[in-house]
Structures are given as structure tokens and as C-alpha cells.
């Protein structure tokens, strides 16, 4: 990476951070006119998958049935950790929602660090909801440390633990198809998302409600996890426009260079 690449990267990160921070501020603290404040109401576009997810979680809580959250087998020290972090944010909100339920959510993960973080997240949610009696460390469990052993260990959870809703969010390979197949056999609702392209292709064919691309990172926002989640979705939209403009300018400069031999950068 050249110094220009690094500075561009830092500028993008700072822009994202600033956008998230400003958009998370209450609109009353921004110097907008009343009319502008009225117009500035951050909303999320309706996605049927999330509407069905909220309904499925609600039904599971009402019926006292289980919700299973699978965090995949991302390594928290590698670049694919963001998918697992998104899963953990989902878990926090899910635990808050299911505090009133008799059956707490079951979380499976494919790495030791994720299993510990899932236990921690559950514990924090139950502590803040004054429902520590419901918490058990085995609610967050490692089911297998390699991709296929993880799937082999998770399938019995789907089949035997009276699960009504399956949420699969994290880093997976094509083996996620086996989990979707198991959920389908049980007739349960399945929402699935992965940051890996092969898994997304498999999910499109096998999952009831697949999420493609960055939709995975929007799950906590759609479950109303907090204003920072909402602002991060808006920041993503803003950054997407910035990137599109940069790419178009880059392509035009390249075209000018090819046609006229003028090197601008």
C-alpha cells in the first residue's frame, strides 16, 4: 500500500466515524430549522425478511419456544470478525427481547473466543434486565472448531432443542446449506446471512430468508438495537455514494489517460 492509499483509507474511516457520530446525535441538538428537523426523520426501508424475523421472534417468545442464533466460525482476530460482531449485536438485542420468555436463546459458535463473547453478551443482557436467574453459561456454546464439525455439532441443536426461529449470522462457507436444510426439515423460520460470497450463493437457494451483501450488518438496526446502529446504516449509504463518485472519477481519469495519454494521477 502506498502512502496515498493509506491516507485515502484513513480519510474514509474518519468520514465514516464523523458521519456515524453526527447522525447519531439527536436532531434537536443539530442546528436545523423546525421544518428541516421534521423532514429529517431517519427511516429504514421496509424489508420483508426483517418483518418476518420480528414476527417469528415474537411468536417464539409468546409460545415459549426457542430461538437459535448461529454465529458461524469467524476468527475474532481476522478480517472476517465483523460478521461475528454483527451477530453479537443481534444477540444482545435478541436477549433483551426474550427476557420475558421462558426459553432463553441458544447461541452456537465455531470458535472459542466467539463462544466466550456470546456468553458475555447474554450475561450482560440478562444482568441489565435483572433476569440473571435465566442465564446459564451453556446457552452460548462452541459446537465445533472447524467449519464442518461446527455444522455437525449445530444440526442437533436445530433438530432437538425445540427451536422455532433460526438466525444464522456470521462467516460460513457453502456448508451453511446443511444448516438451512436441517431448519427446513423442522419447518422453522430461518433468516441467514454471511459475509462470504459462496455462502451467499448457497443461501439464496436454501434459506427461507437470505440476506445478501451488507444487509447482514443491518439486522441489529432493524431489531431497534439503538441509534448508533441506525446511524451506521445511514453512514454506509453516505459512504457508498462517496465510493461511487470516487470510482467514476477514477474511471474517467483512466479513460482520459488512455485516449489522450495525459497522466493526471
Amino acid at each position, binding site marked *: 500500500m502506498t502512502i496515498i492509499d493509506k491516507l485515502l483509507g484513513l480519510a474514509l474511516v474518519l468520514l465514516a466515524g464523523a458521519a*456515524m457520530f453526527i447522525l447519531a446525535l439527536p436532531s434537536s441538538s443539530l442546528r436545523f430549522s423546525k421544518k428541516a428537523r421534521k423532514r429529517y426523520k431517519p427511516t429504514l426501508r421496509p424489508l420483508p425478511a426483517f418483518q418476518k424475523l420480528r414476527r417469528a421472534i415474537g411468536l417464539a417468545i409468546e409460545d415459549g419456544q426457542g430461538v437459535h442464533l448461529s454465529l458461524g466460525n469467524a476468527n475474532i482476530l481476522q478480517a472476517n470478525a465483523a460478521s461475528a460482531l454483527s451477530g453479537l449485536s443481534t444477540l444482545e438485542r435478541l436477549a433483551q427481547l426474550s427476557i420475558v420468555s421462558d426459553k432463553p436463546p441458544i447461541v452456537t459458535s465455531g470458535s472459542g473466543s466467539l463462544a466466550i463473547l456470546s456468553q458475555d453478551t447474554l450475561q450482560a443482557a440478562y444482568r441489565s434486565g435483572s433476569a440473571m436467574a435465566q442465564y446459564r453459561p451453556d446457552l452460548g456454546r462452541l459446537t465445533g472448531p472447524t467449519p464442518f464439525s461446527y455444522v455437525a455439532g449445530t444440526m442437533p441443536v436445530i433438530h432437538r432443542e425445540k427451536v422455532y426461529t433460526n438466525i444464522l449470522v456470521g462467516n460460513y462457507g457453502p456448508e451453511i446449506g446443511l444448516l438451512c436444510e436441517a431448519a427446513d426439515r423442522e419447518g422453522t423460520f430461518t433468516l441467514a446471512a454471511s459475509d462470504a460470497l459462496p455462502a451467499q450463493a448457497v443461501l439464496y437457494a436454501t434459506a427461507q430468508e437470505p440476506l445478501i451483501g451488507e444487509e447482514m450488518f443491518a439486522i441489529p438496526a432493524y431489531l431497534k438495537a439503538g441509534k448508533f446502529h441506525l446511524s451506521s446504516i445511514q453512514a454506509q449509504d453516505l459512504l457508498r455514494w462517496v465510493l461511487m463518485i470516487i470510482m467514476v472519477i477514477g474511471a474517467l481519469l483512466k479513460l482520459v489517460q488512455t485516449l489522450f495519454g495525459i497522466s493526471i494521477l
Partner: protein
Amino acid sequence: MRAPLATAFAISVAVILLLGSFLPVPLLQDVLQPYLLGSAVIVGGVASLIGIYNLLSVHVRKLRTPKAGNLYSLFLIIAFVVTFAAGLWFTPSDARFQRVVTHIQVPVETSLLALLAISLTYTSLRLLQQRKDRMAWVFVISTLIFLIVTGGYLSALGGNGGGGFAAFFNTLPLAGARGILLGVGLGSLTTGLRIVFGADRPYSG
């Protein structure tokens, strides 16, 4: 505020690592970043051990509960104890130990892969029954096209022309893949920034 010390520590480490990735400051890149990443690797290793303990404790608890299928947990525990003892005795780098483990693990995973292939074929056939929208048709047609293109039939039949056609079709998914990956990258960035801001704290139990 939940766990203020842990939050402050996590934010400080995140900021140091983030700046070290972009700014050419020797203190950040040569001293702090390697130290913090090295420590994280050790913590990750310990976490894996705790995870294995967690896996075993879940299966021991299952064995205590009389339920159909729970007996399989006994096989898992026996296999673990034997593998662990052999690993301690021979050390994990021993060729004989590696051969035995690989000769058990690879066939099991291959059979799961075979199961996945059958499952995917069956689901692909059912796709148009389950999804009756335009995108399902696009998915099925593009899958069929790319099965033919990547199968090498065109280049075998059409000589150079067929090869060129195949190369053109092979570049098409790249554009889509890059678009999806850009979205995933932006999502990862904002997820990481939520940790830096202390908005997400999965470590505060």
C-alpha cells in the same frame, strides 16, 4: 455505564491498532501493534481452550440427561480424550499423530461434503417451486449458463471463439462480486467503528 474499565481499554487498543494501520509512526507500527496483536493471539489461544472445555461440559451435561440421541455425546467425549492424550504423548507435530487424525477427520468431512452436494442439488430443483419471483429465474438461468461456461464445453467445442465467449462470461460475475464485497466492506467498517465508539460492547458481561 457497563464495564467502564474494559470499555476504555478496548477503545484505546482499537484506536492504537487503527492508527497503526494507516500512519507510518514507528512507535505504533513496530512496537505497540506487534505487542498488542501478539497478546491477542495468546488470549485467542486460551479462549479456544475455554471453548473446548465448554464443548465438553455441554456434552457431559447431555449424557446426564436421558434423551434419545444423547448417547452420541459419549462417542465425542471418548474421541476427544483419546485424541488429547495421543496429542500430549506424541505431540501435535508428530507425523503419525497427524496421519491418524487426518485419516479420521478427512473422510468424515468428505462425507458431509457429499451430503451437501446432494442437498444443494435437491434444493436447486425445488427453488422455482419455493420462490416464484423474477430473481429466482435469473438465479437459475445464470447458474445453468455458468455451469456450461465453467465446465469448459465452449472452449472445447468452439476453439478460440468459444474460449473468448467463456472469458467474457467469466468476467461478468466479477462485477457483481465486487459490488457485494464493497457493501460487505462498508458494513465491516461501520461495525468496527461501533466498537471504537464503545456503542457495541460484546465484552462487558
